[in-house]
């Protein structure tokens, strides 16, 4: 297993946000984490990437305990991230954004006499080519279209050859066709590179079309886990989350 989570717990002021969640993601697998607002998805996610320290439980990355490590340490061990609202460096070009990830990976951040232009440029272009952004390498990140920014984030996340990708609502704010394209790209990269992908998502079309497995959270607890078809048919999941399906077209 690339990622194994055992009995993760977190409470805020007495309220149990995440209450004993266990899950695992295999190399090359896409696992979707879904559930109603406030179910504990974000809390769970933030404990995996190091933003939050769990009250209990363990997070294992390829067998190594990374519980409670700072985000930048987690990254060094091979966990890439994309954010719900894209986070890139707006005052830099697309290529410079990726170069910075490579510089950090090579531990060259404190070089203050050299020029960034000479650092890792070819490798950055390779990564951009993989996500189809090489043609826009010299544009400023601050002026890119939203869908393109998501691709840049993916390229940044791939810069340290990650074993695990954590994607928080990867398709939020994108048009349906863009969503499909981004998820297909992600799936291809994950399969080719044997990268495990864990993502949260509100768009049920995306979840049911692209996830290999789905985990459903409600009030901090895991209430269902399995293949998309099984989860969709689960009566408890329908009651607390999916509803009749009229508003997302994947129901009855």
């Amino acid at each position, binding site marked *: 297993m690339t990622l194994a989570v055992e009995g993760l717990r977190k409470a805020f002021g007495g309220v149990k946000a995440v209450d004993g969640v266990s899950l695992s993601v295999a190399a090359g697998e896409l696992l979707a984490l879904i559930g109603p607002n406030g179910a504990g998805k974000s809390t769970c996610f933030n404990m995996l*990437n190091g933003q939050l320290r769990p009250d209990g439980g363990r997070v294992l990355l390829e067998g190594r305990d990374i519980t409670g490590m*700072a*985000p*930048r*340490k987690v*990254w*060094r061990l091979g966990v890439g*991230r994309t*954010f719900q609202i894209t*986070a*890139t*460096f*707006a*005052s*830099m*070009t697309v290529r*410079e954004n990726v*170069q*910075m*990830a490579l*510089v*950090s*990976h090579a531990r*060259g*951040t*404190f*070089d*203050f*006499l*050299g*020029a*960034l*232009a000479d*650092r890792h440029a070819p490798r950055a272009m390779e990564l951009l080519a993989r996500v189809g952004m090489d043609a826009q390498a010299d544009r*400023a990140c*601050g*002026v890119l279209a939203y869908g393109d920014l998501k691709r840049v984030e993916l390229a*940044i996340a791939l*810069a*340290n050859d990650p074993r695990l990708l954590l994607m928080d609502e990867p398709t939020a704010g994108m048009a349906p066709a863009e969503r499909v394209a981004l998820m297909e790209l992600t799936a291809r990269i994950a399969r080719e590179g044997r990268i495990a992908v864990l993502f949260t998502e509100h768009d049920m079309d995306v979840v049911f079309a692209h996830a290999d497995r789905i985990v459903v959270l409600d009030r901090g607890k895991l209430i269902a886990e399995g293949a998309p078809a099984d989860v969709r048919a689960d009566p408890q999941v329908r009651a607390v989350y999916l509803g009749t399906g009229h508003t997302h077209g994947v129901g009855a």
Partner: protein
Amino acid sequence: MLENLLVQGLSGLASASSLFLVASGLTVIFGVTRIVNFAHGSLYMLGAYLAWTLVTGLPRGHLGFWGGVLGAALIVGVVGVLIEVLLLRRIYKAPELFQLLATFGVVLIVQDVALLVWGPQDLLGPRAPGLRGATEVFSVRFPLYELFLISVGPVVLVLLWLLFHRTRWGTLVRAATADREMVGALGVNQRMLFTTVFFLGAFLAGLGGALQLPRESVNLQMDLAVIAEAFVVVVIGGLGSLPGAFLAALLLGQMQAFGILIFPKITLVLAFLVMAVVLVVRPHGLLGKAPSTQHAAGPVEPLLRPSPREVRLLGWGLLALAVAVPPFLGDYALIVLTEIAVMMLFAASLHFIMGPGGMASFGHAAYFGLGAYGAALLVKHFAAPMELGLLAAPFAAGLAGVVFGWFCVRLSGVYAAMLTLAFAQIAWSAAFQWTELTGGDNGVLGVWPSGWASDKLTFYYLALALCTGATLLLRRAIFSPFGYALRAGRDSPLRAEAIGMDGFRIRWFAFVLAAVAAGIAGGVFAYAKGSVFPTYMAIPRSVDALLMVLLGGVQTVSGPIVGALAYTWLHEQLMRLFELWRLFLGGVILALVLFFPQGLAGAIGRRGGRE
């Protein structure tokens, strides 16, 4: 002994009340407008002066005194409204430092206006009718007026709380504090809201000043003295929090009352040290909350590129002129040119942390001054030669950068600006009060260059080489991986952390680099002037640096150089030509903030059609 402590405690409470009046206005204004009003101390001073005029002009008695106090506070409220409508309303969307600077422009203007109207001498006001005597508190005689002041603080706190929590106006103000634009979209005229808030804040400051009339003389130094304390109070209490300001005012009032018994000379240092400790333990103050994300999204920083070819050619051309022309110039011109070289490096060092680093520093003069003192003290106490002094300058400043920076780079925005200001004030107080080491106000004299560099022209070349060299290194660093990493942390701390960057260490290192560079500038400046004074580290010197950077434009690479040239020249001319140079400088600051928010280099660049 016990009686003595009691009297100190009570008088500490009375000071706390006055301090709370000023701080509450400051914090209320900040809560809604997000502006840290540097001119709040000026409103306090105006309150005192106006009360003096009204109380001495009106017939004596209760009506004359209390009417005068209230009238003064109301007039100050109206002055606050004028400042809001004419100036601040136009810059609500500008960066925080611009706002701070604009209100500092108001400080300068009010200082000269007060000087013109009331003259330079201290004014003494009458005592309050009905509260002239003293009373016995636990068998200790204590002035009635002080007791009255002690009650004013809690009363105002309760009234303000009721106003904000029990009236519709208060609910709207609290809503606007969180999200002004949304309040507007719900049909509330937020301009009126802001103006009324400003009236309230200014009124409180004016009242605070007016109530001081029976306690102390009215003078032209009241503004900066009280604003420094009020900053400390609101920052310790948490910007925007009234109960926090009250608590902090009590704390500070007591500390000063008792501090004077124990360490009479370092009460100011004590206050700023408390502030530094509180900010590190609770970055948003005792009762403050992390500011909610404002929805008026900030401007996206433009792509930072090396200067275009023409600009670089122009730069090299200027440098060639700076090398070739001076042999034909007189001593005065050489002195001004040396100063320009020093200021260029000083500005560039501040720009390094402000532009790419996105950190606001309101106390950069500390490192300039510590560089100067580092050199001067070696001369004074060990008769060290210039070469050693110039080496010691960046070392001393860098060391201070390591220590102060460790605190400052943890915070952001106005909090960081306040903390940098606090450290600069600590350094300034130390230089001012530690007479045995630094000579205090008299400074250190006789800091002259070594024999080979004593000629004005030679020293100019030395200054030019050191300052230009360091400036070019800083510019190179902006485009190095480190400079990019610094900018990465500014653009998106979340992403920077997510790609393994240690934002704290990066900002800290940048802070130290900037301090070292400012130290070089300070060291050269010390030998150029032959003397070093505490004013090298005072607030106006920090403002000089800010003005140079902003004049040139924060987000341009050549900005600080253009800014240093323009500002040093302008400053020289103003000082020479006008007695009321503060008034003019204040006017220039306001014009700069209102009409050239991108700075000169930015404005020229835009005119040239560059992206």
